[in-house]
């Protein structure tokens, strides 16, 4: 099935008024949740995910897309207005975005972020539509050894992005894998690390883990820092001509960078935004502006962030491997709808697949459209003092965890991982490799097992299979270069 047929099917199923309404609802609720400090895309997604259960698959997916974009943008709003990354991948936006806000250019920053993200979304949606077919075909050629190496590459990339010590980030990735193994070992049917606790039979819920490590940890951090709030004035919403001019180059570069990095598992939005910021700083004629409100410092990362997030759907849809936490949640969402992402998806459920792609684009557009009148309202919401806001947030986290599977145990998981995440932050241990390792753990083991079974115990198969060898070499090269540049 070629792209235009696919897109036609997609638009046909997506552009039904009901679905558009669901998309708008998704965007609004996504923004509402994402704009709250401490609620990132992952949290917002997990909280709002149960809402989608009540709708048929296409509608649910479109709503998910809306929620996703809404939450992402909500995170941007928080970053610009409060200097708190509302979402992991908007960390970079806090640097120059907030400086712009201090100068009264918050509206401009937010608008440029929205437009840049939309442009990046368009380009990357096109890329998904174009590249997914060839990539899916490639995916079918993947042997267990190749999958293993792909996952190792993904984990390596999350480790590389680490701010602190590479070694401790690697340790966290391994710890994540180990934690992911908790539960019944599907290969042998034996329970591991469950200590007789029934609720652990299926392993820990990734949603609860993420809500704890990102949501509750944020609350604890704010407690420690004794944060108050102060929202900045909005100023005019529209950027000036010179701001547009400077931003446009950054948007293009960010889109390109994000599109490339997003495809790699473990890359995705976060890596893209950091890389884009670094790139902008290097190519800028006025590097001294960075850190003081350079508009490129917002435009580049925000576009890269969106492009990366979009193209990180490619490994998800083609291979069934999520590139980052939100994609992991997306897998969960899709599976609950009865869709298993992977090589067969687009051929078995073309309407769902293309509907999803199209709805991602519609969600993106909807966000741009709704953004302009709404920003003022969000700012008012954010001027609520933290000591009022945070009990609500804690309640939200606990409630969300409970309501996902009516499980009192999950509340404990959230609490535990809130502490865990906080401890990790204090100890300078990276949480991102942990989470990816957690999700990939069981898959990694299964493929590792299969590989060695098929090769009769010969580990050199990882290097004799061409795809696997290439992936491992790429991983090794990346590590080599990063280690070398760090040693300088």
């Amino acid at each position, binding site marked *: 099935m070629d792209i235009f047929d696919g897109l036609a099917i997609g638009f046909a199923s997506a552009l039904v008024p009901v679905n558009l309404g669901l998309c708008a609802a998704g965007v609004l609720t996504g923004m509402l949740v994402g704009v709250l400090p401490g609620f990132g895309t992952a949290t917002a997604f997990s909280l709002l995910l149960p809402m989608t259960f009540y709708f048929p698959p296409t509608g649910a997916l479109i709503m998910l897309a809306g929620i996703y974009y809404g939450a992402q943008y909500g995170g941007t709003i928080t970053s610009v207005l409060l200097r708190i990354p509302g979402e992991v991948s908007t960390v970079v936006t806090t640097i120059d975005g907030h400086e712009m806000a201090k100068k009264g250019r918050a509206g401009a920053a937010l608008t440029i972020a929205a437009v840049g993200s939309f442009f990046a979304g368009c380009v990357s949606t096109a890329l998904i539509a174009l590249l997914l077919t060839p990539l899916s075909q490639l995916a079918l050629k993947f042997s267990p050894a190749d999958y293993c190496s792909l996952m190792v590459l993904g984990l390596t990339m999350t480790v590389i992005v680490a701010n602190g010590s590479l*070694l401790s980030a690697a340790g966290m990735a391994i710890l994540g894998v180990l934690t992911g193994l908790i539960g019944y070992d599907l290969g042998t049917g034996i329970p*591991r690390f469950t200590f007789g606790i029934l609720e652990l039979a299926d392993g820990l819920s990734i949603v609860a883990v993420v809500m704890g490590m990102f949501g509750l940890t944020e609350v604890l951090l704010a407690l420690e820092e004794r944060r108050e709030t102060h929202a900045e004035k909005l100023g005019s919403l529209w950027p000036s001509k010179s701001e547009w001019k400077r931003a446009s180059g950054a948007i293009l570069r960010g889109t390109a960078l994000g599109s490339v990095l997003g495809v790699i598992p473990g890359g995705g939005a976060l890596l893209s935004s950091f890389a884009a910021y670094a790139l902008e700083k290097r190519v800028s004629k006025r590097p001294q502006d960075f850190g003081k409100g350079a508009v490129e410092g917002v435009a580049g990362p925000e576009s890269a962030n969106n492009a990366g997030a979009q193209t990180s759907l490619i490994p998800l849809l083609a291979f069934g491997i999520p590139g980052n936490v939100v994609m992991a949640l997306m897998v969960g969402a899709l599976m609950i709808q009865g869709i298993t992402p992977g090589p067969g998806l687009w051929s078995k459920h073309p309407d769902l697949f293309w509907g999803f792609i199209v709805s991602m684009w519609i969600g993106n557009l909807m966000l741009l459209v709704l953004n302009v009148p709404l920003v003022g309202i969000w700012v008012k919401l954010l001027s609520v003092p933290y000591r009022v806001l945070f*009990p609500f947030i804690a309640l939200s986290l606990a*409630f969300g965890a*409970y309501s996902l599977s009516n499980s009192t145990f999950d509340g404990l998981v*959230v609490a535990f991982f809130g502490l865990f995440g906080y401890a990790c932050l*204090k100890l300078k241990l990276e949480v991102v490799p942990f989470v990816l390792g957690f999700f990939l753990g069981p898959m990694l083991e299964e493929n590792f097992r299969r590989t060695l079974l098929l090769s009769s115990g010969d580990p050199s198969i990882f290097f004799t299979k061409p795809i696997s060898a290439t992936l491992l070499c790429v991983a090794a090269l990346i590590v080599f270069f990063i280690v070398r540049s760090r040693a300088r």
Partner: protein
Amino acid sequence: MNTRSSEFLSGTFLTACALFFWKSSGHLHLGSLTSMGPGYFPRLLSIMLGGIGIVLVVRGLRAGDTVTGASISAVPVIFATAIFGFLIEPLGLLVASAAMVAIASLSMRTTLPQTLALSVASAAIAGTLSWGIGLPLPLLPPALLN
């Protein structure tokens, strides 16, 4: 020797985790490389993690920054989050939400009227949310309804 450096502490933590997973997988059948039992992968990973942990400990002892701690004020929030789920059934959602928020706000410096207002507001919001999403949660305490 800097025993409060983040590297030393994180290394200790990771090593402790490695030991934990090592011990907990003791009873699992190892198998061989060709046919890996349930214990193989965990043990392999534990060794790797332990190795990394030890390196970090050694590195941390030599240099590194000091870690600042958290205060006891974090406890109410964590406690409230943990028990919320358990409160819903006996107390109904509204009371559970109010109670949870009240306990959580012990972590922050809220005054009593503020806490009361918060509790009522969050009960209302949680109730509306639950009803709106269609969650099958009891709003009022079942004991009262019987």
